[in-house]
C-alpha cells in the first residue's frame, strides 16, 4: 500500500510533535494498566513480575491502545512544517470523530498560535491500515490533502531509524476503481535552537551550572559526539565508494554524481569577506577575555589593598607600622 510519494512536497517535523504523541500514548497506556500497588511503594519483586507479564505478551487483556490526534503547522509553498499536535476523540468501533471537540480545540490553539492550522492527523501503530482511511477522509473537509503521521510505539533496541512515518493520500486507479491509498513520504527533522537545547537537556541530562571545567567538558562532549557521527557517516560513504571501485558493487552514476557534488562544495566558504568577519569575531572574543582577566586582576588587587590596609592600620593608637595583634 505504501509506495513512495510523488507529490514533491518536503516535510519538516519538529521533535515536539514526536514527544507529544509519545506522551499521549504513554498516558493512555498507563491509565489502562493498573500499577501493582497504589497505596505504598510496591516491593521490587511483585512489580517486576507484573512488568514482565505486561511486557512479555504486551497484553494483559487487550493490545496496546491506539491514540488519535491532530497535527498542526504551516505550509509555505512546497514545504510543510509540522510544529505541534493535540489529542482528538475518536471511536474506532463506530468510526465517529467528535467534531465539536475538534473545533473547540482548534479555536483554543488558534488563540495562542494564530499562524498554525490543521495539517493532518496522527496515530500510533505498526503500519497503516485500511480503516485509517475513514479517519483520513473525515479530516478532508478541513484540509483537502491531510497528512497521516504514524508512530510505532514498540521499543526495538536494534532499530536505528525513528519509527515515525508520514503518509499522504493519493488517488490511484486500482482495478478500474479510483481509490485513495496511502503513500509514504520522506521528512526531515527541523528544530529551533531552543528546542534543540531542551531536547539535548532531557536526553543527555547535562548538569546546569557547575564550574567552568564541567561546562567546557559538556560543550566539547556534545561537539565531539556530533563529529563522531559525521565521521561514521563519511566512513560509510567511503566504504561504498571503495567497494564500487573494486567492482563489488554495481556502479550507480546518480549516487556518484551526488557524492562528487558534495565534495565540490568543500571548502564551504572561502571569500575574503568571510575571513575578515571571522577574524573580527575572533578578535572580539579575545577582547572580551582580556577584559574579564583585567576585571579579575583589579578585583584581586582591590582585595590585596584592603587586606594591606587592615594589617597596617594607620589609625591605630600605637601609630606607625606595628604588628597587627
Amino acid at each position, binding site marked *: 500500500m505504501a509506495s513512495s510519494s510523488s507529490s514533491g512536497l518536503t516535510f519538516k517535523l519538529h521533535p515536539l510533535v514526536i*514527544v507529544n504523541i*509519545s*506522551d499521549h*500514548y*504513554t*498516558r*493512555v*497506556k498507563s*491509565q489502562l494498566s*493498573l*500499577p501493582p500497588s*497504589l497505596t505504598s511503594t510496591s516491593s521490587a519483586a511483585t512489580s517486576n513480575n507484573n*512488568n514482565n507479564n505486561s511486557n512479555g505478551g504486551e497484553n494483559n487483556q487487550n493490545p496496546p491502545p491506539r491514540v488519535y490526534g491532530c497535527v498542526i503547522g504551516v505550509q509555505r509553498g512546497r514545504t510543510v512544517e509540522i510544529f505541534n499536535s493535540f489529542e*482528538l*476523540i475518536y471511536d474506532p468501533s463506530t468510526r465517529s470523530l467528535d467534531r465539536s*471537540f475538534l473545533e473547540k480545540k482548534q479555536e*483554543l490553539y488558534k488563540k*495562542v498560535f494564530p499562524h498554525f492550522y490543521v495539517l493532518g492527523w496522527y496515530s500510533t501503530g505498526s503500519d497503516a491500515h485500511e480503516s485509517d482511511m475513514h479517519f483520513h477522509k473525515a479530516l478532508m473537509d478541513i484540509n483537502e490533502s491531510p497528512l497521516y503521521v504514524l508512530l510505532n510505539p514498540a521499543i526495538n533496541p536494534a532499530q536505528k*531509524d*525513528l519509527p515515525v512515518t508520514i503518509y499522504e493520500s493519493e488517488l490511484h486507479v486500482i482495478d478500474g476503481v479510483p481509490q485513495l491509498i496511502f503513500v509514504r513520504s520522506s521528512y526531515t*527533522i527541523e*528544530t*529551533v*535552537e*531552543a528546542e*534543540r*537545547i*531542551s*531536547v*539535548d*537537556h*532531557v*536526553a*543527555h*541530562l*547535562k*548538569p*546546569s*551550572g*557547575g564550574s567552568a571545567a*564541567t*561546562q567546557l*567538558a*559538556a560543550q566539547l*562532549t556534545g561537539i*565531539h*559526539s*556530533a*563529529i563522531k*557521527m*559525521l565521521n561514521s557517516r563519511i566512513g560509510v560513504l567511503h566504504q561504498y565508494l571503495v567497494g564500487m571501485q573494486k567492482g563489488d558493487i554495481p556502479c550507480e552514476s546518480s549516487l556518484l554524481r551526488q557524492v562528487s557534488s558534495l565534495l565540490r562544495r*568543500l*571548502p*564551504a566558504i572561502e571569500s575574503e569577506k568571510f575571513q575578515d568577519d*571571522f577574524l573580527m569575531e575572533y578578535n*572580539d572574543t579575545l577582547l572580551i577575555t582580556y577584559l574579564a582577566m583585567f*576585571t579579575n586582576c583589579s578585583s584581586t588587587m*582591590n*582585595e590585596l589593598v*584592603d587586606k594591606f590596609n587592615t594589617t597596617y592600620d594607620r589609625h591605630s593608637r600605637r601609630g606607625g607600622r606595628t604588628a597587627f595583634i
Partner: protein
Amino acid sequence: MDSTIAQKTWELENNILAVEAPDPSSDFIFYYDEVAQAMSLKAKPWANDPHFFKRVKISALALLKMVIHARSGGTIEVMGLMIGKTDGDAIIVMDAFALPVEGTETRVNAQADAYEYMVDYSQTNKQAGRLENVVGWYHSHPGYGCWLSGIDVSTQMLNQQFQEPFLAVVIDPTRTVSSGKVDIGAFRTYPEGYKPTDDPISEYQTIPLNKIEDFGVHCKQYYALNISYFKSSLDCHLLDLLWNKYWVNTLSSSPLLGNGDYVAGQLSDLAEKLEQAENHLTHSRIGPLGTSRKKEESHLGKITRDSSKITVEQAHGLMSQVIKDILFNSVRQSK
C-alpha cells in the same frame, strides 16, 4: 560507540545522578490516581508547613513546550499554565500549555482574561483523557534571569492562598540559547510575615542593573525548589533515535551569531555595575569598616563572576566556529 563511552566517563567524573532508568516501571508516574489525589487534596499537608514542597519533577514534554513557547515570545514575556499532580513533597508537572495573553507590567489583570481560556482548555483536556489538574503557572524573563519580580510574588501569594497546590516556574529563553543549557527556576512564596529559619544558598545568577532592585526587595519572600526531569521509556527511546538526526543541528548551530545583541547588552550592563562599584569604593576609602568592606568585595567579586561567565559563553561559541572552520574550510588532498 565512542560517544557513549565519553559520556559515561564524563558522567562518572562529575557524579551525575542518573535519572530513573528507562524501564517500563518508571512509566507509572504517568498514571493518574484520582483517589489518592483527592485524598491528598483533602488532607492539605501543605497548609501547615510553608516549606512543605521541596522538589519539582518536570516531564520532558512540559519542558519542551515551555521553552519553545518562551523562546517564541522573543523579548516579550509570555506565560502559561502547567498541569500535573502532587506526590508527597514533590510537585509533578506533566504538561504545559500557553495562555493567549501578552506580558506587561499589569500582568495581574491579564490573568483574569485567561481564566476562560483555562477553563475551556482544562475541560477539553479531561475529555481527551488527560485527567490531571492545573498545578502551577510559568512565565518567561527573556534575558534577565530566573527569579520572581514584585508582581510575580504578589500573584503567586494570591495563588497559594486560593489555588493550592500551586507552583511558579520562570524560564529565561535568551540565556538558555546563549549558554547552551536550559535556564529554569521553580519557586514557591512564603505566606505574609513568615520568616524562613535558614537562608538557603541559591545558585548565583547575574541580574541586570535595572532589575536588581526589584530582585533584592523580594528575594527573601520565596524559596527555590529542586528541579529534576523525567521521561517515559518510549520518550527515552525516541530521543535516542532523534540524536541520529540531530547531530547535524548540534554541529551547525551558531550561538555567537544569534545572540550578539544579548552579549552586547550584558557587557554594557557590566560597565554600569563597574561604575557603581567604583563609586562605592571611593566613598568608603577611609578606614575600612567591617560590613562595608564585605559589600565592596562582593560587588567587585560579583562583577568578576559575571564577566567570566560572559567570556566563557563567548569562548564556547567561538570554539564551535573554529572547529567548523577547520572541518569544512581547510580541505587538503590526502594521498
